[in-house]
Protein backbone atom coordinates (compact mmCIF):
# COMPACT_ATOMS: atom_id res chain seq x y z
CA UNK A 1 0.00 0.00 0.00
CA UNK A 2 1.37 3.40 -1.01
CA UNK A 3 1.48 5.80 1.91
CA UNK A 4 2.00 9.52 1.46
CA UNK A 5 2.71 12.46 3.71
CA UNK A 6 2.26 15.82 2.02
CA UNK A 7 3.57 18.89 3.79
CA UNK A 8 2.31 22.26 2.52
CA UNK A 9 3.74 25.58 3.64
CA UNK A 10 4.82 24.27 7.01
CA UNK A 11 6.01 27.04 9.31
CA UNK A 12 6.76 27.10 12.99
CA UNK A 13 7.69 29.93 15.26
CA UNK A 14 8.88 29.89 18.87
CA UNK A 15 8.04 33.35 20.22
CA UNK A 16 10.02 35.73 17.98
CA UNK A 17 12.21 33.09 16.37
CA UNK A 18 11.06 31.49 13.12
CA UNK A 19 12.32 27.90 13.16
CA UNK A 20 10.59 26.53 10.05
CA UNK A 21 9.65 28.57 7.04
CA UNK A 22 7.42 27.52 4.18
CA UNK A 23 8.40 23.84 3.91
CA UNK A 24 6.74 22.01 1.03
CA UNK A 25 7.50 18.36 0.36
CA UNK A 26 6.00 14.93 -0.21
CA UNK A 27 7.10 11.68 1.40
CA UNK A 28 6.07 8.34 -0.05
CA UNK A 29 7.00 4.75 0.82
CA UNK A 30 10.76 4.46 1.17
CA UNK A 31 13.59 5.83 3.24
CA UNK A 32 14.17 9.58 3.40
CA UNK A 33 17.18 11.21 4.98
CA UNK A 34 16.91 14.73 6.33
CA UNK A 35 20.32 16.34 6.37
CA UNK A 36 21.21 19.62 7.95
CA UNK A 37 23.48 21.29 10.46
CA UNK A 38 22.47 21.77 14.09
CA UNK A 39 19.60 24.23 14.32
CA UNK A 40 18.40 23.60 10.77
CA UNK A 41 14.92 22.64 11.95
CA UNK A 42 15.08 18.87 11.35
CA UNK A 43 13.83 17.88 14.81
CA UNK A 44 11.20 20.60 14.81
CA UNK A 45 9.83 19.36 11.50
CA UNK A 46 9.67 15.81 12.83
CA UNK A 47 7.86 16.97 15.94
CA UNK A 48 5.34 18.82 13.79
CA UNK A 49 4.67 15.63 11.80
CA UNK A 50 4.13 13.66 15.04
CA UNK A 51 1.75 16.30 16.34
CA UNK A 52 3.91 17.32 19.28
CA UNK A 53 3.96 20.91 18.07
CA UNK A 54 1.25 23.12 16.68
CA UNK A 55 2.21 24.70 13.35
CA UNK A 56 1.08 26.85 10.45
CA UNK A 57 0.42 25.14 7.14
CA UNK A 58 -0.96 21.66 6.59
CA UNK A 59 0.27 18.11 6.89
CA UNK A 60 -1.79 15.49 5.07
CA UNK A 61 -1.41 11.78 5.57
CA UNK A 62 -2.94 9.70 2.78
CA UNK A 63 -5.14 12.61 1.77
CA UNK A 64 -6.44 13.43 5.25
CA UNK A 65 -5.46 16.70 6.86
CA UNK A 66 -4.03 15.95 10.23
CA UNK A 67 -2.95 17.93 13.21
CA UNK A 68 -1.79 14.89 15.11
CA UNK A 69 -0.70 11.63 13.51
CA UNK A 70 -2.79 8.74 14.87
CA UNK A 71 -0.65 7.09 17.50
CA UNK A 72 -1.08 3.55 16.18
CA UNK A 73 0.30 4.48 12.77
CA UNK A 74 3.49 6.22 13.81
CA UNK A 75 6.74 5.14 15.38
CA UNK A 76 9.09 7.77 16.75
CA UNK A 77 12.59 7.70 18.15
CA UNK A 78 13.59 11.04 19.71
CA UNK A 79 17.13 12.36 19.93
CA UNK A 80 17.39 11.30 23.55
CA UNK A 81 15.84 8.07 24.70
CA UNK A 82 16.23 6.44 28.09
CA UNK A 83 12.84 5.92 29.66
CA UNK A 84 11.87 3.67 32.56
CA UNK A 85 15.35 2.75 33.81
CA UNK A 86 13.91 0.41 36.46
CA UNK A 87 11.94 -1.73 34.02
CA UNK A 88 13.31 -4.71 32.13
CA UNK A 89 13.59 -4.57 28.36
CA UNK A 90 10.57 -6.86 28.00
CA UNK A 91 8.46 -4.81 30.41
CA UNK A 92 9.25 -1.60 28.58
CA UNK A 93 8.35 -3.13 25.22
CA UNK A 94 5.11 -4.45 26.74
CA UNK A 95 4.34 -0.94 27.95
CA UNK A 96 4.81 0.47 24.47
CA UNK A 97 2.73 -2.33 22.95
CA UNK A 98 -0.07 -1.32 25.31
CA UNK A 99 0.28 2.33 24.36
CA UNK A 100 0.12 1.40 20.67
CA UNK A 101 -2.99 -0.71 21.35
CA UNK A 102 -1.44 -3.92 20.04
CA UNK A 103 -3.76 -6.80 21.07
CA UNK A 104 -2.45 -8.79 24.03
CA UNK A 105 -2.53 -12.03 22.03
CA UNK A 106 -0.09 -10.57 19.49
CA UNK A 107 2.24 -8.78 21.89
CA UNK A 108 4.58 -11.70 22.64
CA UNK A 109 5.42 -12.32 18.98
CA UNK A 110 5.62 -8.62 18.11
CA UNK A 111 8.08 -7.94 20.95
CA UNK A 112 10.15 -11.04 20.13
CA UNK A 113 10.40 -9.98 16.48
CA UNK A 114 11.34 -6.40 17.38
CA UNK A 115 14.05 -7.49 19.84
CA UNK A 116 15.46 -10.01 17.34
CA UNK A 117 15.58 -7.25 14.74
CA UNK A 118 17.85 -5.09 16.93
CA UNK A 119 19.73 -8.05 18.42
CA UNK A 120 18.54 -7.44 21.98
CA UNK A 121 16.62 -10.69 22.52
CA UNK A 122 19.32 -11.94 24.91
CA UNK A 123 18.78 -8.83 27.07
CA UNK A 124 15.01 -9.14 27.41
CA UNK A 125 15.18 -9.66 31.18
CA UNK A 126 17.87 -7.04 31.76
CA UNK A 127 16.98 -3.76 33.43
CA UNK A 128 17.25 -0.79 31.16
CA UNK A 129 19.57 0.99 33.61
CA UNK A 130 22.08 -1.84 33.09
CA UNK A 131 22.18 -1.53 29.29
CA UNK A 132 24.94 0.31 27.44
CA UNK A 133 24.16 3.52 25.57
CA UNK A 134 24.18 1.73 22.23
CA UNK A 135 21.80 -0.95 23.51
CA UNK A 136 19.37 1.69 24.81
CA UNK A 137 19.45 3.35 21.39
CA UNK A 138 18.70 0.02 19.71
CA UNK A 139 15.85 -0.49 22.15
CA UNK A 140 14.50 2.88 21.13
CA UNK A 141 14.64 1.82 17.49
CA UNK A 142 12.82 -1.42 18.39
CA UNK A 143 9.93 0.43 20.08
CA UNK A 144 9.60 2.72 17.05
CA UNK A 145 9.02 -0.30 14.81
CA UNK A 146 6.41 -1.94 17.05
CA UNK A 147 3.02 -2.55 15.54
CA UNK A 148 1.47 -1.72 12.21
CA UNK A 149 3.26 1.58 11.77
CA UNK A 150 2.96 3.32 8.42
CA UNK A 151 5.37 6.11 9.33
CA UNK A 152 8.64 5.80 11.24
CA UNK A 153 10.50 8.92 12.31
CA UNK A 154 14.03 8.46 13.62
CA UNK A 155 15.85 11.48 15.01
CA UNK A 156 19.63 10.98 15.03
CA UNK A 157 19.18 7.20 15.34
CA UNK A 158 22.88 6.34 15.10
CA UNK A 159 24.00 8.67 17.88
CA UNK A 160 26.06 6.62 20.32
CA UNK A 161 26.23 3.54 18.11
CA UNK A 162 29.56 1.94 17.27
CA UNK A 163 30.45 1.26 13.61
CA UNK A 164 29.17 -2.33 13.70
CA UNK A 165 25.87 -1.21 15.22
CA UNK A 166 25.53 1.54 12.63
CA UNK A 167 25.88 -1.02 9.84
CA UNK A 168 23.28 -3.20 11.56
CA UNK A 169 20.97 -0.19 11.85
CA UNK A 170 21.25 0.50 8.12
CA UNK A 171 20.36 -3.12 7.37
CA UNK A 172 17.39 -2.95 9.75
CA UNK A 173 15.77 0.06 8.16
CA UNK A 174 16.48 -1.22 4.65
CA UNK A 175 14.60 -4.42 5.50
CA UNK A 176 11.71 -2.57 7.14
CA UNK A 177 11.10 0.07 4.49
CA UNK A 178 8.57 -1.91 2.46
CA UNK A 179 5.08 -0.33 2.63
CA UNK A 180 6.34 2.31 5.04
CA UNK A 181 7.62 5.84 5.09
CA UNK A 182 10.84 5.99 7.07
CA UNK A 183 12.32 9.42 7.75
CA UNK A 184 15.78 9.60 9.26
CA UNK A 185 17.07 12.91 10.54
CA UNK A 186 20.83 13.25 10.92
CA UNK A 187 23.84 15.45 10.35
CA UNK A 188 26.02 12.41 9.46
CA UNK A 189 26.18 12.28 5.68
CA UNK A 190 27.50 8.71 5.61
CA UNK A 191 24.34 7.36 7.26
CA UNK A 192 22.13 9.04 4.73
CA UNK A 193 24.30 8.07 1.79
CA UNK A 194 24.31 4.38 2.76
CA UNK A 195 20.63 3.72 3.38
CA UNK A 196 18.38 6.48 2.08
CA UNK A 197 16.58 6.53 -1.26
CA UNK A 198 15.95 10.26 -1.08
CA UNK A 199 17.60 13.13 0.69
CA UNK A 200 16.18 16.39 1.94
CA UNK A 201 18.62 19.13 2.89
CA UNK A 202 17.57 21.77 5.38
CA UNK A 203 19.24 24.87 6.73
CA UNK A 204 17.94 27.74 8.87
CA UNK A 205 14.40 26.39 8.78
CA UNK A 206 14.17 26.15 5.00
CA UNK A 207 14.23 23.25 2.58
CA UNK A 208 17.18 23.62 0.24
CA UNK A 209 16.92 20.37 -1.68
CA UNK A 210 14.78 17.27 -2.06
CA UNK A 211 15.75 14.46 -4.40
CA UNK A 212 17.94 11.45 -4.93
CA UNK A 213 21.58 11.00 -3.92
CA UNK A 214 22.61 11.37 -7.57
CA UNK A 215 20.80 14.71 -7.90
CA UNK A 216 22.56 16.03 -4.78
CA UNK A 217 25.95 14.92 -6.09
CA UNK A 218 25.30 16.92 -9.27
CA UNK A 219 25.56 20.15 -7.28
CA UNK A 220 29.24 19.52 -6.79
CA UNK A 221 29.95 17.93 -10.19
CA UNK A 222 33.14 19.31 -11.69
CA UNK A 223 33.84 21.57 -8.72
CA UNK A 224 35.95 19.34 -6.49
CA UNK A 225 39.69 19.63 -6.68
CA UNK A 226 42.84 19.14 -4.65
CA UNK A 227 45.12 22.05 -3.87
CA UNK A 228 48.40 22.49 -2.10
CA UNK A 229 48.81 24.97 0.73
CA UNK A 230 50.24 27.67 -1.50
CA UNK A 231 47.14 27.64 -3.75
CA UNK A 232 44.63 28.29 -0.99
CA UNK A 233 44.56 32.02 -1.59
CA UNK A 234 42.58 31.61 -4.80
CA UNK A 235 39.41 33.66 -4.85
CA UNK A 236 37.51 30.88 -6.61
CA UNK A 237 37.46 28.64 -3.54
CA UNK A 238 34.00 28.19 -2.04
CA UNK A 239 34.96 25.94 0.86
CA UNK A 240 37.90 23.90 2.12
CA UNK A 241 36.52 20.48 3.02
CA UNK A 242 39.46 18.69 4.58
CA UNK A 243 43.22 18.32 4.56
CA UNK A 244 45.48 15.25 4.37
CA UNK A 245 49.04 14.31 3.58
CA UNK A 246 49.76 13.29 0.01
CA UNK A 247 53.34 12.36 -0.94
CA UNK A 248 54.50 14.01 2.26
CA UNK A 249 52.84 17.27 1.37
CA UNK A 250 49.72 18.77 2.94
CA UNK A 251 46.89 18.66 0.43
CA UNK A 252 43.45 20.19 0.66
CA UNK A 253 40.20 18.92 -0.88
CA UNK A 254 38.27 22.03 -1.82
CA UNK A 255 34.99 22.96 -3.44
CA UNK A 256 35.36 25.64 -6.11
CA UNK A 257 32.76 28.24 -6.94
CA UNK A 258 32.72 27.16 -10.58
CA UNK A 259 33.56 23.96 -12.46
CA UNK A 260 37.26 23.34 -13.04
CA UNK A 261 39.27 21.14 -15.35
CA UNK A 262 40.37 17.73 -14.10
CA UNK A 263 37.99 17.89 -11.18
CA UNK A 264 37.88 15.03 -8.65
CA UNK A 265 34.84 12.79 -8.43
CA UNK A 266 32.21 14.36 -6.20
CA UNK A 267 30.10 12.59 -3.58
CA UNK A 268 26.99 13.25 -1.49
CA UNK A 269 28.94 15.14 1.15
CA UNK A 270 30.38 17.46 -1.51
CA UNK A 271 26.92 18.20 -2.89
CA UNK A 272 25.57 18.77 0.63
CA UNK A 273 28.36 21.20 1.50
CA UNK A 274 27.92 23.03 -1.80
CA UNK A 275 24.27 23.61 -1.02
CA UNK A 276 24.95 24.79 2.52
CA UNK A 277 27.69 27.19 1.53
CA UNK A 278 25.72 28.72 -1.31
CA UNK A 279 22.49 29.27 0.69
Amino acid sequence: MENQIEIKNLSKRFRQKRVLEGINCIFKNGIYGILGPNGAGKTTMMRCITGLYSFQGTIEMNGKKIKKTPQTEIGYLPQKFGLFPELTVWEMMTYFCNLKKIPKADQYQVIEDALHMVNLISQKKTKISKLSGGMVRRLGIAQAFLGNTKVILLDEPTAGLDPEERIRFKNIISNMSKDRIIIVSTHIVEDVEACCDHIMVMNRGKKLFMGTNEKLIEYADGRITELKAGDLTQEDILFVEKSYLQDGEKTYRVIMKHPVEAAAKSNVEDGYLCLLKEH
Partner: protein
Amino acid sequence: MSFEGALKNKMTRILIQWRGMKWLRYIPFLVNYFILPGTLYAFSKFVDNYELENYFVQLSFLFIPIMSIWWIVLILHEYTEGKGSEVLWIYEKGKLTDVLIFLAMYILSLIPFMLCAMNVLMVDIALFGQMFAQSFFYAGTIYMLAFMFHSVTAAFIPVFAYNLYAYDRIYQLLEKANINSIQSSGYYLFIGIIFFGIGITYHKNL
Protein backbone atom coordinates in the same frame (compact mmCIF):
# COMPACT_ATOMS: atom_id res chain seq x y z
CA MET B 1 -10.05 -2.70 20.56
CA SER B 2 -12.94 -3.87 22.77
CA PHE B 3 -13.66 -2.28 26.18
CA GLU B 4 -12.45 -5.43 27.90
CA GLY B 5 -9.22 -5.35 25.91
CA ALA B 6 -8.71 -1.66 26.65
CA LEU B 7 -9.30 -2.29 30.36
CA LYS B 8 -6.77 -5.17 30.39
CA ASN B 9 -4.27 -2.94 28.58
CA LYS B 10 -4.79 -0.17 31.12
CA MET B 11 -4.35 -2.51 34.08
CA THR B 12 -1.18 -3.95 32.55
CA ARG B 13 0.24 -0.44 32.18
CA ILE B 14 -0.69 0.39 35.77
CA LEU B 15 1.09 -2.75 36.92
CA ILE B 16 4.19 -1.97 34.87
CA GLN B 17 4.32 1.56 36.23
CA TRP B 18 3.89 0.14 39.75
CA ARG B 19 6.86 -2.18 39.19
CA GLY B 20 8.87 0.68 37.73
CA MET B 21 8.66 2.58 41.03
CA LYS B 22 10.93 -0.03 42.65
CA TRP B 23 11.19 0.20 46.46
CA LEU B 24 9.96 3.81 46.42
CA ARG B 25 6.40 2.55 46.00
CA TYR B 26 6.38 1.42 49.64
CA ILE B 27 7.05 4.89 51.11
CA PRO B 28 3.34 5.76 51.65
CA PHE B 29 2.83 2.44 53.49
CA LEU B 30 5.92 3.09 55.60
CA VAL B 31 4.68 6.55 56.56
CA ASN B 32 1.01 5.71 57.13
CA TYR B 33 1.42 2.32 58.79
CA PHE B 34 4.70 2.64 60.67
CA ILE B 35 5.87 6.23 61.17
CA LEU B 36 2.46 7.73 61.92
CA PRO B 37 1.21 4.97 64.30
CA GLY B 38 4.69 4.66 65.82
CA THR B 39 4.77 8.35 66.62
CA LEU B 40 1.29 8.19 68.12
CA TYR B 41 2.25 5.18 70.22
CA ALA B 42 5.24 7.11 71.55
CA PHE B 43 2.97 10.08 72.38
CA SER B 44 0.46 7.79 74.13
CA LYS B 45 2.93 7.28 76.94
CA PHE B 46 2.83 10.96 77.86
CA VAL B 47 -0.67 12.23 77.03
CA ASP B 48 -4.26 11.29 77.73
CA ASN B 49 -6.73 9.99 75.13
CA TYR B 50 -8.23 13.40 74.34
CA GLU B 51 -4.85 14.94 73.58
CA LEU B 52 -3.84 11.80 71.68
CA GLU B 53 -6.84 12.26 69.39
CA ASN B 54 -5.72 15.86 68.75
CA TYR B 55 -2.21 14.67 67.92
CA PHE B 56 -3.68 12.04 65.63
CA VAL B 57 -5.61 14.71 63.72
CA GLN B 58 -2.55 16.95 63.47
CA LEU B 59 -0.20 14.22 62.27
CA SER B 60 -2.75 12.72 59.88
CA PHE B 61 -3.31 16.06 58.15
CA LEU B 62 0.43 16.54 57.99
CA PHE B 63 1.23 13.20 56.36
CA ILE B 64 -1.77 11.63 54.70
CA PRO B 65 -2.66 14.22 52.04
CA ILE B 66 0.96 14.82 51.00
CA MET B 67 1.57 11.06 50.69
CA SER B 68 -1.39 10.85 48.30
CA ILE B 69 0.72 12.43 45.55
CA TRP B 70 3.76 10.20 46.03
CA TRP B 71 2.80 7.57 43.45
CA ILE B 72 1.47 10.29 41.14
CA VAL B 73 4.80 12.11 41.21
CA LEU B 74 6.63 8.88 40.39
CA ILE B 75 4.44 8.06 37.37
CA LEU B 76 4.49 11.63 36.05
CA HIS B 77 8.26 11.81 36.36
CA GLU B 78 8.88 9.85 33.14
CA TYR B 79 6.36 11.98 31.27
CA THR B 80 7.82 15.29 32.30
CA GLU B 81 11.50 14.69 32.97
CA GLY B 82 12.27 11.29 31.43
CA LYS B 83 14.87 11.09 28.62
CA GLY B 84 12.77 10.89 25.47
CA SER B 85 9.47 11.61 27.23
CA GLU B 86 8.16 13.18 24.03
CA VAL B 87 7.67 9.70 22.57
CA LEU B 88 5.20 8.99 25.38
CA TRP B 89 3.30 12.19 24.56
CA ILE B 90 2.77 10.93 21.01
CA TYR B 91 1.47 7.49 21.98
CA GLU B 92 -0.50 8.38 25.10
CA LYS B 93 -3.01 11.19 24.81
CA GLY B 94 -3.58 11.68 28.50
CA LYS B 95 -2.30 10.71 31.91
CA LEU B 96 -5.40 11.72 33.85
CA THR B 97 -6.88 8.21 34.15
CA ASP B 98 -3.65 6.78 35.53
CA VAL B 99 -3.37 9.63 38.03
CA LEU B 100 -6.93 9.09 39.26
CA ILE B 101 -6.38 5.32 39.48
CA PHE B 102 -3.30 5.78 41.65
CA LEU B 103 -5.13 8.30 43.80
CA ALA B 104 -7.97 5.79 44.26
CA MET B 105 -5.45 3.06 45.08
CA TYR B 106 -3.94 5.27 47.75
CA ILE B 107 -7.30 6.02 49.31
CA LEU B 108 -8.19 2.31 49.30
CA SER B 109 -4.84 1.51 50.90
CA LEU B 110 -5.86 3.72 53.84
CA ILE B 111 -9.02 1.75 54.67
CA PRO B 112 -7.37 -0.52 57.29
CA PHE B 113 -5.73 2.55 58.83
CA MET B 114 -9.05 4.37 58.83
CA LEU B 115 -10.96 1.49 60.44
CA CYS B 116 -8.30 1.16 63.12
CA ALA B 117 -8.38 4.88 63.89
CA MET B 118 -12.17 4.91 64.07
CA ASN B 119 -12.27 1.94 66.45
CA VAL B 120 -9.31 2.74 68.68
CA LEU B 121 -9.34 6.52 68.82
CA MET B 122 -13.03 7.01 68.00
CA VAL B 123 -12.10 9.33 65.15
CA ASP B 124 -15.01 10.65 63.07
CA ILE B 125 -15.17 9.37 59.49
CA ALA B 126 -15.80 12.95 58.29
CA LEU B 127 -12.21 13.73 59.19
CA PHE B 128 -11.04 11.23 56.60
CA GLY B 129 -13.49 12.71 54.11
CA GLN B 130 -11.74 16.05 54.51
CA MET B 131 -8.32 14.44 54.15
CA PHE B 132 -9.39 12.68 50.95
CA ALA B 133 -10.78 15.93 49.56
CA GLN B 134 -7.45 17.60 50.32
CA SER B 135 -5.66 14.67 48.65
CA PHE B 136 -7.77 15.18 45.52
CA PHE B 137 -6.83 18.86 45.55
CA TYR B 138 -3.13 17.99 45.88
CA ALA B 139 -3.40 15.50 43.01
CA GLY B 140 -5.00 18.13 40.78
CA THR B 141 -2.35 20.68 41.75
CA ILE B 142 0.52 18.30 41.02
CA TYR B 143 -1.07 17.33 37.68
CA MET B 144 -1.41 20.98 36.66
CA LEU B 145 2.03 22.12 37.85
CA ALA B 146 3.87 19.06 36.46
CA PHE B 147 2.64 19.77 32.92
CA MET B 148 2.95 23.53 33.35
CA PHE B 149 6.60 23.38 34.43
CA HIS B 150 7.50 20.06 32.71
CA SER B 151 8.98 19.06 36.02
CA VAL B 152 7.57 17.06 38.94
CA THR B 153 10.29 18.49 41.19
CA ALA B 154 9.11 22.03 40.47
CA ALA B 155 5.53 20.85 41.00
CA PHE B 156 6.16 19.06 44.29
CA ILE B 157 7.82 21.94 46.12
CA PRO B 158 4.82 24.34 46.17
CA VAL B 159 2.47 21.49 47.14
CA PHE B 160 4.78 20.47 49.96
CA ALA B 161 5.04 24.09 51.13
CA TYR B 162 1.26 24.46 51.01
CA ASN B 163 0.88 21.26 53.02
CA LEU B 164 2.96 22.72 55.83
CA TYR B 165 0.95 25.94 55.69
CA ALA B 166 -2.42 24.18 55.42
CA TYR B 167 -1.63 21.78 58.24
CA ASP B 168 -1.51 24.63 60.71
CA ARG B 169 -4.52 26.46 59.20
CA ILE B 170 -6.72 23.38 59.08
CA TYR B 171 -5.99 22.50 62.65
CA GLN B 172 -7.06 26.02 63.67
CA LEU B 173 -10.17 25.73 61.52
CA LEU B 174 -11.09 22.41 63.04
CA GLU B 175 -10.71 23.88 66.48
CA LYS B 176 -13.01 26.77 65.62
CA ALA B 177 -15.49 25.05 63.32
CA ASN B 178 -17.56 21.92 63.39
CA ILE B 179 -15.33 18.94 62.51
CA ASN B 180 -18.14 17.61 60.32
CA SER B 181 -18.12 20.73 58.17
CA ILE B 182 -17.89 19.84 54.50
CA GLN B 183 -17.17 23.41 53.45
CA SER B 184 -13.41 23.03 53.35
CA SER B 185 -13.80 19.64 51.62
CA GLY B 186 -16.06 21.18 48.99
CA TYR B 187 -13.57 23.93 48.25
CA TYR B 188 -10.74 21.43 47.93
CA LEU B 189 -12.74 19.22 45.57
CA PHE B 190 -13.81 22.17 43.44
CA ILE B 191 -10.33 23.65 43.14
CA GLY B 192 -8.88 20.20 42.54
CA ILE B 193 -11.19 19.73 39.55
CA ILE B 194 -10.18 23.15 38.18
CA PHE B 195 -6.48 22.31 38.51
CA PHE B 196 -6.96 18.93 36.79
CA GLY B 197 -8.64 20.79 33.93
CA ILE B 198 -5.78 23.25 33.62
CA GLY B 199 -3.32 20.35 33.72
CA ILE B 200 -5.16 18.63 30.85
CA THR B 201 -4.96 21.85 28.81
CA TYR B 202 -1.22 22.16 29.39
CA HIS B 203 -0.74 18.48 28.56
CA LYS B 204 -2.53 18.84 25.24
CA ASN B 205 -0.61 21.97 24.22
CA LEU B 206 2.98 20.88 24.55
